[in-house]
């Protein structure tokens, strides 16, 4: 192999790696995240594999938000922040109505930074890049 071919290969793999990291497709962390999603019963509110459909009376839309397409609305950093701090005050359909029973708790005291990173990467991996809707 010539020097230039090696360089092209190196540059190519570096580009590929960085693209994967940006998309959150680090397989080991994704798998760690998937296990955490099951262990901490995230699906009890967000549905299996983040598919949603779980009722939450008087929350906007009447359901807990699904996570399967969360990659379209959040960056990895934003998603990690959401998991860390939670979202205790769920937006209400009727502001004078009862408080929705389910809310997003803060996980930073329960999970480590590494675990939250894995969880966020798993959630990002639920939507393959070629299925993302183009918002531009």
């Amino acid at each position, binding site marked *: 192999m010539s020097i230039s071919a090696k360089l092209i290969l190196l540059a190519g793999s570096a580009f590929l790696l960085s693209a994967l990291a940006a998309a959150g497709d680090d397989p080991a962390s994704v798998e760690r995240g998937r296990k955490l999603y099951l262990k*901490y*019963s*995230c699906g*009890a*509110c967000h549905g299996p594999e983040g598919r949603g*459909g*779980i*009722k*939450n*009376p*008087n929350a906007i839309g*009447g359901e*807990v938000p699904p996570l399967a397409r969360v990659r379209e609305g959040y960056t990895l950093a934003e998603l990690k922040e959401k998991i860390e701090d939670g979202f205790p005050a769920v937006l209400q359909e009727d502001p004078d109505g*009862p*408080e*929705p*029973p*389910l*809310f997003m*708790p803060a996980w930073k005291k*329960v999970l480590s930074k590494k675990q939250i990173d894995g969880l966020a990467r798993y959630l990002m991996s639920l939507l393959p890049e070629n299925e993302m809707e183009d918002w531009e």
Partner: protein
Amino acid sequence: MKPRRKAFWTAAALFSAGAVLFPLSRDAGVADSAGTPEPPWESELRPRMPRTDALLELGQKAYGRNCAVCHGEKGDGRSDAAEFMDLKPRDFLAGSVKVKSTPPGSLPSDEDLFRTISAGFPEYGMPSYRYLSVEERWGLVHVLKDFMKASGRKEGEALDLGAPPPGPPDLGRGREKYMAFGCAACHGDSGGGDGPLARYFPGTFLDARGSTAAPRNLTLGPYAFKSGGSQRDIVRALATGFEGTRMASYIPALGPGGDRSPLWEIAAYVHSLSRDKR
């Protein structure tokens, strides 16, 4: 004896009385489709006894002797005994009770109050008062209703619970609905009261009066359920919710038309989780 000490021992005595009397009070009755016997007071609460001076006087005497020690002379839930309780005695003036058949925000029905007086909440220190006569218990209902007038709340019609779907209950479908209605978020995947949100209850999940209100362990039922363990009782709890706690009314979750069958399917599934099948 010092008043505070007296209050403590009265509360302790009531608590033990509840533990002894409670199982005895669930004796006879007609079984529902799931085999849970109808409690005996269901036949005692018909016909409804309307308010008369004589009945009210009987109720006031019974209140002073039996209820005031915890719920307070004025019915505001303030008493020496209350200080020793984690879950505080009901403040009747607020007009809000957890166990009822009417929509959130409205007063309980007369029958709701009669049932609660008769059944008690033995796990929480309120024994069954079925040893009082039927007249005394109806008198108490009217005393409580007088207290509740202070809340300005209106009476409500009992919520329509529908009827159980025909045929044997489909527990697989019940399990599906249990998950889809988010029950597992608090009550846990296997009903043990250990869902992912349960860890946030101590301290944060306080009811309106500052008592902790943890999600129920559904495997301990049916008699560990505060509002009764028959399938109809469970459907009613799902329909009305428990006011002042995170347990909401799930009627809005039924969508347009409000078909009640998901509630019955969940109830059959929850009933099947009980270790105690009496």
